[in-house]
């Protein structure tokens, strides 16, 4: 999938299974922590904690399985994330969320699109500014005017 893949898969200790296994264990711990105050109940009257904790035990099992497998039969190594894309998309969506209700859809959408577009090496400056402005305006008309979605268009 990734362009950095050359002839034949490369394995390494820091491989897919390891990270996935660790993720599962982390999730299980999170579930146990956030449900610790819930009643488990009995099988005829299952409490709120019964089901999530049962599944969480399953996650622990799978997590251990994958971590073990990752060391015994290493799978393909995980390639570095595309930081620029990740960071900019996160920023773009965050900006949108923060600005939507305060500055209105047009500004939030415009800024978000500009920020996101910086994640692509192929973006052209003038083109993207015009395009983003048009899309923001069109979205406002379509979603807020025509479809009556409750959000401000402009800050005033």
């Amino acid at each position, binding site marked *: 999938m990734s362009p950095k893949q050359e002839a034949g898969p490369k394995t390494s200790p820091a491989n897919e299974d390891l990270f996935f296994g660790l*993720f*599962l264990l982390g999730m299980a711990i999170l579930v146990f922590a956030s449900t610790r105050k819930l009643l488990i109940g009995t099988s005829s009257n299952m409490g709120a*904690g019964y*089901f999530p904790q049962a599944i969480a035990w399953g996650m622990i099992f799978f997590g251990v399985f994958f971590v073990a497998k990752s060391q015994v039969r290493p799978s393909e190594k995980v390639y570095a*994330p595309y930081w620029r*894309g990740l960071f900019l998309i996160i920023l773009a969506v965050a900006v949108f*969320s923060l600005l939507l209700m305060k500055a209105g859809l047009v500004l939030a959408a415009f800024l978000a699109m500009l920020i996101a577009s910086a994640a692509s090496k192929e973006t052209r400056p003038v083109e993207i500014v015009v395009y983003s402005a048009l899309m923001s305006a069109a979205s406002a008309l379509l979603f807020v005017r025509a479809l009556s979605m409750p959000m401000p268009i402009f800050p005033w």
Partner: protein
Amino acid sequence: MELFSNLMLGFSTALEWHNLLYCLFGALIGTLIGVLPGIGPVPTVALLLPFTFGMAPASAFIMLAGIFYGAQYGGSTTAILVNIPGETSAVVTCLDGHQMARNGRAGTALAIAAMASFFAGTVATTVIAMLSGPLSRLAMSFTAVEFFSLMVLGLVAAVIMAHGSIVKSLAMIGIGLLIGVVGIDVNTGVARMTFNIPEFADGLSFVSVAMGFFGLAEIINNLEKPSHQIVVSQKMKNLLPTWQDLKTAFPAMLRGTAIGSILGVLPGGGAALPPFTAYAIEKKLARDPSRFGKGAIEGVASPEAANNAGAQTSFIPLLTLGIPSNAIMALMIGALMIQGIQPGPQIIVEQPELVWGVIASMWVGNLMLLVINLPLIGIWVSMLKVPYRLLFPAIMLFCCIGAYGVNNSVMDIWLMLGCAVVGYFFIKVKVETAPLLLGLILGPQLEENLRRAMLLSDGDFSVFVTRPISAVLLGSVAVILLVMLSPAVLKKRDEIVESEG
């Protein structure tokens, strides 16, 4: 014959010119909102409900119904073109539909989706006309026990659907189940894993999660590559399917229709169960299951048929028993009651023009949608020629707006963002997210029905095998699991996984 005269009555109602217009209007709006991610049929129907007060009941119903199944058509379009499932029912179409688009066969995929939907719609209309009685009785015999077993069967479908290691799929289902737990617990009223965020009290919005995992994560992943490798190949092969395509797709359409018609009648399960199950069965029955996930036509034809058939047959409990099988039907009941019509078994007797008119209009609506959508394929496909550098910010924007639109809550956008990051992680460690989504959809109902069944049976687990329907369902689960874990099948899957690298 009574059926014939009923249908004649129905068509005479449906073909009145104003009803035709309402049908068209509903179908168009439905398609539009189906295409737009995040805005679904439920808020749209709710929005248009007041406008129906002044309309004749049959017209109102025809229009609202049109929105519902029109949305199924629209949802598949975005699923195929940009891999974003706007509706739960479209998730499965993403799997092979989008791959077909990547292989330059977007037009074929869209056309097959439209045709499968039309075929299913026609058959489903007939089913409704002829089999309402027996199907309603089937729906009535489902209690918590049977629902639980059905959900288990559905989850097993997720394992079948998955491409690679069964263990990974099971783990992903588990994650989905856990995400589904978030919210207020039905049985005790206690908030679980909501971290004191009030917007999560009713669970995490499926649309946000799906768009985060499928839409945004994929965008981040795509940005790494130069754009000519992304989305779809610019060389569009034929816009329409070949004869060979149709021959392959047709049996899949039949199976999908059957599955959708039966599963659609059952309350709960929602719109997602029919397509997921249909896909799983296609994959199981295929001579070469490795094609699935890479652009197999059956992987589009069957789920599309299933979700359209399911959408229409979900009207059966409403029309025959006055019981809504999903949120849209509940809205329809509201519409009926405002018109002064009491929904219930007597509605078929007291308001035959309404009931049969709606049934007939479904077929008319499907025909309209087919006729409208086929030429639109050209337009959709030309939109794909938009360079990715412009396409992805727009997709991102629509995802944001869509995520907000489900519940009018900004928190849902943040949720989507979180899922995008996790989804990107999943892409990097090469696990499929489809089983997770299925776990998320089915999890809450699985748990709710398990606990209710146990409450009612006072903790007696044997009810699951002593009640006949449940026994059959669980028996099927056992058989499927045995087959999947059998050495022959395992070996074949390993070969597939290794050959993919």
